[in-house]
């Protein structure tokens, strides 16, 4: 990937303490006020505990499906730079431990948000908490299942690399369609539609993965 990111001079010092409507809690170290979810105390600069934040809030991003990957990357790399172990080598054991906890949370949030499928799954659960208790774990969508079965059968029967490539291309096209459609349904807060598309996306990813396996097997035979 291209490095589109430049260190944001000056901003890294402030971004831990910008308080945009976040509840203020006392800093564990100096008892000064800290916006919940801030990486650092603005008063004493001590690293803060990660707290219970959703993955979007962790990067100060709105909980929406549309997300520019360059923006996410920038927030992520900023955080990781500020939490780098080298910066804590001379700090207290407590600060070293907190910075590691923060780092774990930041990584988890990034891994979830950068992948369109994981992001969709996460956002459905985030928005649907209490609305759709089963989340997207059930499939009773016969149309989707029939499609998945037919495509997997076609792959199992595929004899030439061209056949496999054609199926993989179809999976790729449909994946792109799903991601675009997810953006629409999340914008209108259509959670049922989001669930359907997320499930379809899972099956398409699986198909694409199986296409790769199939191709590898064919390559070996030749």
């Amino acid at each position, binding site marked *: 990937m291209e490095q589109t990111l430049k260190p944001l001079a000056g901003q890294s010092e402030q971004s831990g303490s910008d308080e945009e409507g976040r509840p203020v809690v006392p800093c564990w170290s100096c008892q000064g006020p800290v916006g919940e979810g801030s990486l650092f105390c603005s008063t004493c600069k001590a690293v803060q505990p990660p707290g219970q934040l959703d993955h979007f809030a962790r990067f100060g991003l709105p909980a929406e499906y549309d997300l520019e990957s360059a923006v996410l990357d920038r927030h992520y790399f900023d955080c990781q730079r500020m939490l780098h172990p080298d910066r804590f080598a001379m700090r207290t054991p407590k600060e070293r431990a907190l910075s590691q906890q923060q780092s774990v949370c930041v990584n988890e949030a990034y891994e979830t948000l950068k992948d369109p499928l994981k992001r969709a799954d996460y956002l459905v659960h985030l928005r649907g908490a209490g609305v759709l208790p089963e989340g997207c774990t059930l*499939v009773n969508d016969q149309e989707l299942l029939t499609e998945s*079965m037919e495509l997997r059968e076609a792959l199992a029967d595929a004899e030439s690399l061209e056949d496999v490539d054609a199926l993989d291309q179809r999976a790729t096209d449909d994946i792109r369609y799903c991601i675009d459609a997810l953006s629409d349904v999340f914008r209108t807060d259509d959670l049922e539609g989001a669930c359907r598309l997320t499930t379809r996306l899972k099956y398409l990813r699986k*198909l694409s993965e199986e296409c790769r396996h199939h191709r590898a097997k064919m390559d070996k035979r030749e």
Partner: protein
Amino acid sequence: MAYSEKVVEHYENPRNVGTMNKADPEVGTGLVGAPACGDVMKLQIQVSENGIIEDAKFKTFGCGSAIASSSLVTEWVKGKTLDEAATIRNSEIAEHLALPPVKIHCSVLAEDAIKAAVADYRTKNTDAKPEAAE
């Protein structure tokens, strides 16, 4: 994690793999899926006039446990009545195949599949023979 001997046995020699004509009124089809792993399972039964399952076929794209669970169910349901087939529980499948806890959902899928196949057969045959559904 290692699969049990029985799972491996079914996986290597799956019973009754195949497809029946979905449109045939004597055939009931159950199509179910587990999106978390991208599994899809089709289980079909052919039912005689007196409500006995004469033949069963399956096609599963999924892990070894899902294949073994559906293979086992096709063996179990042959010769059973629809009611008997619908009482098969996932716990029996899981126990027979010695499935570990993380693979229990595969047996659930097989239970759902046979139930769906029975329900499909009944739906198809209710219109034609209302009394046969009872």
